[in-house]
């Protein structure tokens, strides 16, 4: 098979030229794997209360605990090994980010494309609503929704989706509106194909590149937003701490110099978010026709 032939290999070859982006992608993959196999790589199961000992709480990095192994990043107030807690926290953060990202992508893309395809009143109604919401800061919206719905994974994801679907709707609408006016769509509409087929087979595939770009950025954003909400005490229940919750737990102890409880989960969070953003930047540049060589 000719390696140059598929769009994917062409895309990958161009992506490979940016060393920083490749590094960022490998970090994202590594962190995702660590999160996926958290139960195998972490020295301790931080959710199993039988494993924890209060004797070990708030110990500095490098301390050898009652379990007989070294806590390389120290322990938190409950006596959890921080390294293990970070792996498990990564898992929750990534889970929430992906779930919120995909649901907002689906809802937003559907609304945006429908608005562009149908036009008229529907278009006006949907896009006015989206614009109204975009002028309102996402964090505030998520804050209020999560406050009203209460704590839990589903509630948190709904709040993130409600705060973020508008970005996808805007993007999908812009792309679909431009495609809608082109001859191939007019031609497809003129054939006896049903609207559903025209949208799914012709319109949607041509709107995907910008949506992919927004999706990468928004997944990073939902991870960050989730961490912020958890930090404010409006995120997940304490029994399954995400990275934001770990940081929040350590905050009161920071004043007395026990920095590691907050700092290391934060470092993990930032590495994850920055790496995703760098990958997203590169993907955006590759999809941007104005930067095409």
């Amino acid at each position: 098979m000719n390696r140059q032939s598929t769009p994917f290999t062409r895309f990958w070859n161009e992506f490979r030229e940016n060393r920083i982006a490749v590094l960022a992608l490998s970090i994202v993959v590594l962190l995702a794997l660590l999160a996926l196999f958290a139960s195998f790589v972490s020295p301790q199961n931080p959710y199993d209360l039988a494993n924890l000992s209060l004797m070990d709480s708030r110990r500095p990095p490098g301390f050898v605990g009652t379990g007989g192994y070294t806590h390389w990043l120290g322990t938190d107030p409950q006596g959890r090994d921080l390294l293990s807690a970070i792996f498990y926290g990564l898992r929750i953060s990534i889970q929430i980010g992906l779930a919120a990202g995909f649901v907002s992508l689906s809802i937003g893309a559907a609304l945006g494309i429908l608005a562009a395809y149908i036009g008229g009143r529907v278009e006006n109604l949907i896009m006015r609503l989206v614009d109204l919401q975009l002028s309102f800061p996402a964090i505030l919206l998520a804050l209020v929704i999560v406050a009203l719905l209460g704590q839990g994974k589903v509630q948190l994801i709904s709040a993130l989706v409600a705060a973020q679907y508008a970005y996808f709707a805007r993007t999908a609408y812009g792309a679909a509106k431009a495609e809608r006016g082109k001859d191939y769509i007019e031609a497809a509409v003129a054939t006896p194909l049903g609207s559903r087929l025209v949208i799914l087979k012709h319109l949607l595939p041509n709107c995907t590149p910008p949506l992919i770009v927004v999706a990468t950025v928004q997944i990073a954003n939902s991870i960050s937003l989730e961490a912020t909400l958890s930090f404010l005490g409006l995120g997940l229940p304490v029994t399954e701490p995400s990275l934001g919750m770990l940081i929040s737990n350590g905050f009161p102890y920071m004043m007395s110099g026990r920095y590691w409880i907050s700092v290391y989960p934060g470092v993990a969070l930032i590495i994850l978010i920055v790496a995703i953003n760098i990958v997203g930047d590169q993907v955006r540049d590759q999809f941007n026709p104005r930067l095409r060589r």
Partner: protein
Amino acid sequence: MLGFIIQRFLQAIGVMAVMSLIVFCGVYAIGNPIDIVIPPEATQDLRDEVIRRLGLDRPLYEQYFIFLVNLLKGDLGRSFVYNIPVLELIGGRLPATLELVLISVVSASVIGVSLGIYAGYRPESWTAKTIMAASVLGFSVPSFWVGLILILTFAVNLGWLPAGGRGATIDIWGVAWSFPTLDGLSHIILPAINLALFKLAMMIRLARAGTREIMLTDTIKFARAAGLSEITILRQHLLKLISIPIITVFGLELGSTLAFAVVTETIFSWPGVGKLIIDSIAVLDRPVMVAYLILVAFLFVTINFVIDLIFALIDPRVRRGAAS
């Protein structure tokens, strides 16, 4: 011109009406504040009495109607928890937030635009690349985390600046302000930096993109051919041309910074509106939540309206396009 203003004004009122309905339904549809306001050991008579006094026994549409009428009279209800008028409660906290937000946004804009113009003017220089790399960080790193690191570094480890609170204040026209006193100023520095970083990154990127684009246009070529000095070109021509997107973002950012202040105020225990809303959410103090959201919506709508007006004044194309 007058037609344009009236059209935009009516639009703004329409948006406010929709927002008030959404906010009201959103806040009132879910959650039951009665359990929080009334102790569980209260008698049934007392319960009914309190529910009636708070107007919670009436149907939702009636509650909304009463709320709307009171809103027009400038009465946003009483806080369930503090039992004082909400407007008074929020008004008392507003100066602290405004002070913080204004200092952050103004300094972020001045510094950000200068750095951005430099980065766009000499894009290949080492300094410009450093500025841009830093701005990527400013975008990516969650602001609560930056706040923690600021506290850890400057308050805990170095001990230079206080970690929270407002410090000494001075009354000007009956309102307490922190910035005129040295102690207050030292309290405001860390939260202001925390709040400003995201805006700074955004202003840098905006100014840089505008500068790069405009430096390649004929306007600049002709200005150079006319023998104007580079400083004059930057000040007289470039700054004017990049100002339109920057004014828009400045206005919008003023509003969103107000929202982001929620996070910063929580970290630094800054006694502003953001801290108030977080505390109110925790105890489901509905009137405060509704009033806060309506206030933020009102600010956004007003800012958008003013931006539109400024646009119409600067750019005649906007005026004509909207009128037709």
